[in-house]
Structures are given as structure tokens and as C-alpha cells.
């Protein structure tokens, strides 16, 4: 334990591009790109499924299978397959990014479609009754109402991506995983433990920031900061998800996939 503190407080470890700040930024950068790409794929898809109710079975099961792909195996496969096809430093990075994107898609998509699907049908009907088009219903009613679950999915994905981005070091790039691998190779366990601690702290800090964002982005009508939402069903009201860590989003979504009643 003392070794870890010594390692963490050694000024040498805080300087240079391969010091703690540099590797933390690299780690965040890899995580951010992966999450961005995953959002571009998963959220429109999730919204579309939630809105139309079409393709749900196929996509949900595909996402379930994707979730089951072991990251390490996928990384090796991507390195063997893609490395010869890529030029320059991208060859080291792209395989890891793909692994992280595959990891982030299922929770993001689950959040998006579960959120839209869970919107009170009365609200949707009212919007249609007011003459809104399908896109308007989606943009003005469904997305704002689904936002807590979408953000929950985003937090879940972020946590997993930050925790797993250490794998990038296995494929020859930077990030906090460097400290784990390098520490292991030279039997410098304080460095290894220090690296692990940094990953956990980074995940915690980012999650807290996202929790704050979530609080202020979500419509007051849903958070209870304004008038409470209609509570017609016994389903957990969305505001309960506010204080939750991300992984929670799986609960509503997966219970639904079990439900034989839903088409």
C-alpha cells in the first residue's frame, strides 16, 4: 500500500506524455472516440426501434449476443485481421476502438429503445391528437421522456468503456492500461495497483460528472423538480433512475425481453 502511494506521488510519474496526466488524457480520448461512434450507431437505431416497434426482436437479440463477445478475444481477432490492413499508428488503435464500440453499443441502444418504448402511451396519443407528425412526436415527446434512460444507458456504456479501455495497452497503445501491463512485466506491483486505482477513480469522477449532467439536462417534469409525471403504471417511475449508476438501465430493458406479452 505504501508502495502505491509512493508511486502515485512520485513527481517523475506525473511528467511527460507517458506520465499519469498524459496517459489519463489518452485513456479519456480513446473512451470518448469509442463512445461517440457507438452513440452514432446505437442511439438512432434504438430510437427507431422504440418509435416504430419494428426490428426489435432481431436487434435486441443481436445486441444480447454482442454483449456476450469476450473483449479480449475480439481484440486479438481484430488485431490479426485489421492490423495488416491499416497504416501508421491507427493499426494499434483501431482494433481496441472497435472492441470498445462493440462494448458500448448494447447498453446505449437498450437505453434508447427502452426509454422510448416506456413513454406513457397517453402522452404519445395526446401528441398525435395535437397533430404532431411522427418525427415531432419522437423529437418533442418521446426523446425528452426517454432522456433519463438514454442517459442511464450512456453512463453504463461510459463506465464499461473506461474500465475496459485498459485493453488498448495490450494492443500496443497508451492509456492507463500501460501502467498495468508495464507494472506486471517488471513486477512493479505498486505501479500496477496505482494504475488500477487511477482507472477506478477516473470512472468514478466521470460517472459523477455525468450524474450532474443528467440532473440538469432532464426535463423538470420528469425529475420531480417540477410537477410529478402521471403515474399510471406500477413500472418504476423514470426519476428513480436518476441516482442510479448506469448498469441499472439493463433492468427495465432486459425484463422486457423476457416478457412473452410484448410482440
Amino acid at each position: 500500500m505504501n508502495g502505491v502511494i509512493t508511486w502515485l506521488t512520485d513527481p517523475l510519474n506525473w511528467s511527460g506524455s507517458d506520465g499519469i496526466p498524459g496517459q489519463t488524457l489518452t485513456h479519456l480520448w480513446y473512451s470518448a472516440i469509442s463512445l461517440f461512434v457507438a452513440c452514432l450507431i446505437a442511439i438512432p437505431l434504438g430510437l427507431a426501434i422504440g418509435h416504430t416497434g419494428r426490428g426489435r426482436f432481431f436487434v435486441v437479440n443481436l445486441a444480447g449476443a454482442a454483449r456476450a463477445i469476450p473483449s479480449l478475444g475480439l481484440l486479438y481477432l481484430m488485431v490479426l485481421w485489421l492490423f495488416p490492413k491499416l497504416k501508421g499508428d491507427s493499426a494499434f488503435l483501431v482494433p481496441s476502438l472497435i472492441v470498445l464500440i462493440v462494448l458500448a453499443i448494447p447498453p446505449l441502444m437498450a437505453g434508447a429503445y427502452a426509454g422510448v418504448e416506456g413513454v406513457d402511451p397517453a402522452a404519445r396519443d395526446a401528441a398525435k391528437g395535437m397533430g404532431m407528425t411522427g418525427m415531432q412526436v419522437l423529437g418533442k415527446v418521446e426523446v425528452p421522456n426517454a432522456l433519463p434512460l438514454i442517459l442511464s444507458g450512456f453512463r453504463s456504456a461510459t463506465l464499461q468503456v473506461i474500465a475496459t479501455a485498459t485493453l488498448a495497452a495490450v494492443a500496443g497503445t497508451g492509456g492507463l492500461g500501460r501502467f498495468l501491463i508495464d507494472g506486471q512485466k517488471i513486477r512493479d506491483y505498486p505501479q500496477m495497483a496505482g494504475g488500477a486505482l487511477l482507472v477506478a477513480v477516473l470512472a468514478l469522477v466521470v460517472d459523477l460528472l455525468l450524474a450532474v449532467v443528467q440532473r440538469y439536462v432532464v426535463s423538470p417534469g420528469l425529475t420531480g423538480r417540477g410537477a410529478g409525471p402521471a403515474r399510471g403504471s406500477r413500472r418504476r417511475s423514470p426519476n428513480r433512475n436518476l441516482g442510479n449508476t448506469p448498469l441499472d438501465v439493463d433492468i427495465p430493458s432486459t425484463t422486457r425481453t423476457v416478457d412473452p406479452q410484448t410482440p
Partner: protein
Amino acid sequence: MTWFLDHIPEVLRLAWTHAYLAGIPLVVGLALALPLGWLARRYSWLYAPFTAGFGLLYTIPSLALFVMLPLFTGYGILSPVNVVIALSLYTLALLVRTVADGLGAVPDHVQNAATAMGYTRGKRFFAIELPLAVPVIAAGLRVAAVSNVSIVSVGTIIGVQQLGLLFSDGFNRDFYDPLVVGIIGCVVLALLFDGIIILLARLLTPWQRATGGRA
């Protein structure tokens, strides 16, 4: 493909080890998460520190945990027990919140009805709260099962033989067959766990089928 056909016994052996290394921690983690989740629900001031604190365990990279755990547990460095302990921690990390939320999802009027019928606190827990929380807990278990199957494959680093062995074998020899067989094996195993949990959850919640509704 021929590689797979030639190595079926080997793959099955690795898959079996993989299955119990991923499966036992589900049972252990759940057994630990139930009382902890109950505490978090019973004493609301415990909820935030418990759910956040245990959730944080999940962010400890498995590589570091596998290598350093033997230093703390005193088990032999190659002992699969280390993997089981590490994965039990991850399972626990995922399930404490799930259990707490699941128990909390029991509507007040149901609780009140049970109290009115003379149920003691203990009986209420086992007869009402726990069964009604099964769907939520099962959903959390499914996430944990899939996550465990994936993380077990990192165990090669400490010489624990499971499907992850096929990853490094394929990687080292630039040989897709074992690598792909290993990945597919993991996916199949994860889906099997998923199916078993769904089945168990259904068996434990007969009222869901009877009424078609959910608690």
C-alpha cells in the same frame, strides 16, 4: 472448421472449466448481494455508499485483480480460486444495487397488506419481497453472467485453463480457428447462462405467467 472437429474434447474441457469459473461466482455473488442489498434497502442511509462503493469494485481492471489477488488471498498463484474470488467481487459489484432496487420495487400497498396479514419482517422478506424482486434480480444476474463469461477469459494470465486459452493460442500462431472457436464458445456459454437464468426466473415467478402481468 477441421481444427474444431479435431479438438472437440479439448474445447469441451475448456468450456466446462470456463462455465464453472463463471457460474460459481454468480451463486456466491448473489448470496452475498442479497443481505447487502437488503441492508441498503432497510437503512436508507446505507443505500448510496453501498451501491456506489460496491459498484466501484467493477471498475478494477481484471488483469490487475487476477495478478494481485493471490498476494492477498494466500491461495496458490495458479489456483482457480483466485479467479472465482475476483469474479464473485465483480458479481457482487453488479448485484448489490440490483437487489436493493429489486426489493425496493415492491409496492407499499403490497407490503402493508402483508403486514396486516400478520407477516413478521423475516417472513415478509422471504414470502413477499424476495419473490417479487426476482425479475429485477434475474435481469441483474443476466448482466453479471455475460460479464463473468467475458472476464474469465483473462484468467490465462495466471494459468487458469479456460476458453481464453484458445484466444492466446490463435493469436500467437496467427491462426483464426482456435481464436474464433474460443469466441463462439464464450458467446454460446453466455447465452446458455442467460437461458438458464430466464428459465429459473420464470419457474420462481409462476404468477407472472398466470396473470400475464409483472409485479
